[in-house]
C-alpha cells in the first residue's frame, strides 16, 4: 500500500542523496604546468588544420593535439555547461568576440597575458582590443572576420549603374534602380530571422549611419529618432516594406540568405555580409551560380566611406584545462603569422585549413596578399587595416547575449509588421537600460 509515510520516507531519502551529491565538489584535478609529452584537446567550431601541420607542431613541442570540431551554437552550450559544472572538456576552446564581456566577468578563462606577450601582439593583431576586458586578455583572435558590403557587379551593371555607390543614399537609390529596371525583383538581402545574424547586420548598418550602439557604460545610443541606430533600423525595416528585400526574408538567417539568395544571383547585394565570403562561397563553383560576379564594396556611409564592424573568432584557455601551458603553446603556434598564411592557402592547397580565409595577423595577411592568394585581397586587407572597428569600443558587455536577443527578436517583429520601428527600438533600449543598471 502506498501510504503517506512511505512516500515521505522515499522523499527524505532522495533529499539526503541529493545533498550528498551536491556537496561533492567537482572532480577538479589540479591543472598541470607540463607541456611536453601531453595530449591537449582543442574544441573549436572549425575543421582542423592539415594533419601534417599538427604533426609538425607535435614534433616541435612534444604536445599532441586532439581536435574536436563542434558547431558554434552547440559549442557555446558546452562551454557554459562545463564551466557551470566545473568540468573539464577542452584545454583550448572558442572565445567569441561577443562573449568576451560575459566570459571575463565570469572568470571562466585564463588571462592570456600571463602566457603570451599580448602587448607585442596587439600591434600585429588589430582585433586583439576586442578581446581585452578589465585589463585582461581573455582570448587571442585567430581570424580577422568582419562585416562588409558585397555587391553583384554584373547585376549592378545590367541596371545601368556604372559607378559603385559611395554613400548609403546612393546605395539605396541604386537598389531601387535595379528593382525598377527589373534586373531582380528584390535586390537587397537582409536576414530578418530572429537570430544573431540580424543583430550584427544592424550593428554594421548603424556604423554606416555613423554612430555607436552603446556607450562605455552600456547605455543605448539609438533611442532618439535622429540617432544612427534608429535610422539604421528604420532603413532596414523600410527596405523590406518597400519591396527591396524579399518578403520571405522575415525568416531567413544570415548564412541561409547568403547561400540561397546572394550566391544564386537572386539578390544584388548584401549590406552586412561576412568577410571572406567571396573566396569561400561566391567564387566557389560547387556552391555558387555567380562565380566572379561578386565583389566587396567599401561601406557606403552617411557622407562617404564608413567603417566595418569586426566579429573575429578567438581561442582561449578555460579554467578547467588540464594543461594550460601546453594549450598556450598551441595557441601561439596556431596564431603565428606564417601558419595563418599557410592555413589560408598562401603556400599551396596541402597546407590549407578548410574554411579559413582571413589571418588575424597583419603579417599573415600581407603574405597572403603578396602571393596573390587572397580573393579580394587588396581590398580586404585595406579594409582590415583602415576601417575594421570593434562593435563595442569598450568591449562587449557581460550581458551581451540577452541584449542581442532583444535586438533580433524586436527587429524581427518590426519587419513582420507586428511592431513599429519606434516600439521595437524602445523595447531594445529598455532592455539595454535594465541590463546596464544591473537589475
Amino acid at each position, binding site marked *: *500500500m*502506498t501510504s503517506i509515510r*512511505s*512516500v515521505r520516507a*522515499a522523499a527524505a531519502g532522495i533529499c539526503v542523496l541529493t545533498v550528498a*551529491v551536491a556537496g*561533492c565538489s*567537482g*572532480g577538479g584535478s589540479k591543472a598541470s604546468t607540463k607541456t611536453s609529452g601531453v595530449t591537449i*584537446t582543442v*574544441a573549436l*567550431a*572549425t*575543421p*582542423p588544420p592539415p*594533419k601534417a601541420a599538427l604533426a609538425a607542431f607535435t614534433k616541435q613541442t612534444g604536445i599532441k593535439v*586532439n*581536435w*574536436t*570540431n*563542434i*558547431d*558554434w551554437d*552547440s559549442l557555446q*552550450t*558546452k562551454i557554459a*555547461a*562545463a564551466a*557551470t*559544472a*566545473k*568540468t*573539464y*572538456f*577542452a584545454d583550448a576552446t572558442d572565445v567569441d568576440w561577443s562573449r568576451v564581456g560575459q566570459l571575463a566577468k565570469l572568470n571562466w578563462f585564463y588571462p592570456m597575458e600571463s602566457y603570451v606577450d599580448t602587448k607585442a601582439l596587439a600591434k600585429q593583431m588589430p582585433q586583439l582590443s576586442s578581446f581585452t576586458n578589465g585589463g585582461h586578455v581573455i582570448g587571442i583572435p585567430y581570424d580577422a*572576420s568582419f562585416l562588409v558590403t558585397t555587391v553583384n557587379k554584373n547585376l549592378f551593371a545590367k541596371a545601368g549603374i556604372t559607378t559603385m555607390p559611395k554613400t548609403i543614399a546612393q546605395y539605396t537609390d541604386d537598389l531601387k534602380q535595379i528593382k525598377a529596371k527589373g534586373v531582380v525583383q528584390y535586390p537587397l538581402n537582409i536576414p530578418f530571422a530572429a537570430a544573431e545574424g540580424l543583430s550584427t547586420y544592424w550593428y554594421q548598418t548603424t556604423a554606416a549611419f555613423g554612430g555607436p550602439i552603446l556607450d562605455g557604460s552600456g547605455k543605448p545610443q539609438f533611442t532618439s529618432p535622429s540617432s544612427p541606430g534608429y535610422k539604421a533600423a528604420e532603413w532596414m525595416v523600410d527596405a523590406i516594406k518597400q519591396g527591396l528585400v524579399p518578403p520571405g526574408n522575415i525568416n531567413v538567417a544570415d*548564412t*541561409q540568405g*547568403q*547561400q*540561397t539568395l546572394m*550566391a*544564386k544571383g*537572386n539578390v544584388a547585394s548584401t549590406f552586412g555580409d*561576412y568577410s*571572406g*565570403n567571396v573566396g*569561400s*562561397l561566391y567564387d566557389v*563553383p*560547387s*556552391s*555558387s*551560380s555567380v562565380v566572379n560576379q561578386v565583389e566587396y564594396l567599401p561601406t557606403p556611409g552617411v557622407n562617404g566611406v564608413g567603417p566595418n564592424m569586426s566579429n573575429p*573568432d578567438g581561442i582561449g584557455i578555460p579554467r578547467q584545462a588540464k594543461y594550460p601551458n601546453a594549450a598556450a603553446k598551441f595557441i601561439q603556434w596556431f596564431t603565428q603569422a606564417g601558419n595563418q598564411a599557410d592555413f589560408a592557402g598562401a603556400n599551396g592547397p596541402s597546407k590549407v585549413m578548410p*574554411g579559413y580565409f582571413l589571418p588575424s595577423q597583419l603579417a599573415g595577411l600581407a603574405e597572403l596578399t603578396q602571393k596573390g592568394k587572397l580573393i579580394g585581397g587588396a581590398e580586404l586587407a585595406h579594409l582590415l587595416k583602415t576601417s575594421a572597428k570593434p562593435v563595442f569600443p569598450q568591449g562587449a558587455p557581460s550581458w551581451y547575449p540577452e541584449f542581442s536577443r532583444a535586438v533580433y527578436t524586436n527587429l524581427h517583429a518590426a519587419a513582420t509588421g507586428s511592431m513599429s520601428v519606434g516600439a521595437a527600438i524602445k523595447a531594445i533600449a529598455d532592455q539595454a537600460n535594465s541590463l546596464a543598471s544591473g537589475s
Partner: protein
Amino acid sequence: MFRKRSWGRRIGILVILGWSLVPLYWTLNTSLQNDSQISAKPAHYVPPTPTLHNFSSLLSGDGSIPTTVRQSTVNIFIECGAATIVTVVLATLAAYAFARMTFRGRKLLFYAVLATMAFPAYTTLIPLYRIMSDFSLVNTYTGIVLVYVSGFLPLATWILHNYMSSLPKSIEEAGAVDGAGRMQVLWHIVMPLAIPGIISTAIITFLFAWAQFLFPLVLSSDDSTQPLTVVIAALQGRHTVPLSLLSAAGVFALAIPAVIAFALNRYIVSGLLSGSAK
C-alpha cells in the same frame, strides 16, 4: 466487405509511404547535388547531375571529416546497442515484478519511475553532468550508456508492464501448478509470450538512443565517444552551411537503422507482429 477493407488499407499504405518518403526523397535529392544546384527557383525535383561526391567526402579517405564520421558511427552503435540491451533486460525483469508480484512500495516505485519521464532534458542536464564528472565518467562509453539507460527505462518498463499484464494468467498459473518456480515461469512461459513487447521496446529504445543529441554533446568531449548525431551537427560551418553534405550525412544516418531493420526483417516480423492470440 473484404474488398472494401483492403481498399482502405491500400490507401493507408500509400499515405504511410508518402508521409515518410516525400521529405526523405527531398533529402536524398539534395544529397546528390552540389550546393550551387540546390535552392534553385523552381526547385530541381531530380538531381540535374547526380553525384556521389557528398557521400565520398563524408565517408571515404583520410580527411578529418571521414575519419570522424567513421569513428562516430562506431561510437553510436556501441552506445545505442549497449543502452538498448541493458534497458530491455532491466525493464523486463522489473515489469514482470510489477505486473505479477506484490511487494511493499510497488505502486510508489512504479509511479515514481513513470513520473521521471515528465522531467525535461534541460532539467537534469547540468546535475547529471556534475554527477558523471564526480565519478570520472565524462567522455566514456559507460557514462553515456548509464545516462541513456536511466532516461529510457521508464518508457520501456511501462510498455513491458502493459504487455505482461495483458497476457492470459491461465498459462502462468498452469505452469505454477506444474511446480515451476517463479523465475522458471518468467523465463519459459512469460518471456516467450512477451517477445512482441520486448522487440518493440528494443526498437523504440534503440531509436530514441539513436536520436540523442544534447546529452552526448555535453557528456562526450572528443572523437572517442561522440556519436554520429553530434558529428553531423558539427558539419555546419560558422559562415556556411553545406546543405548537400548535411543531407548526405542525414541519408547515411538514417540508412543505418533502415538497413538493420531490413536485415533483421525476419526476426522483427516473427517477433513483433506475431501477437499472442493463441
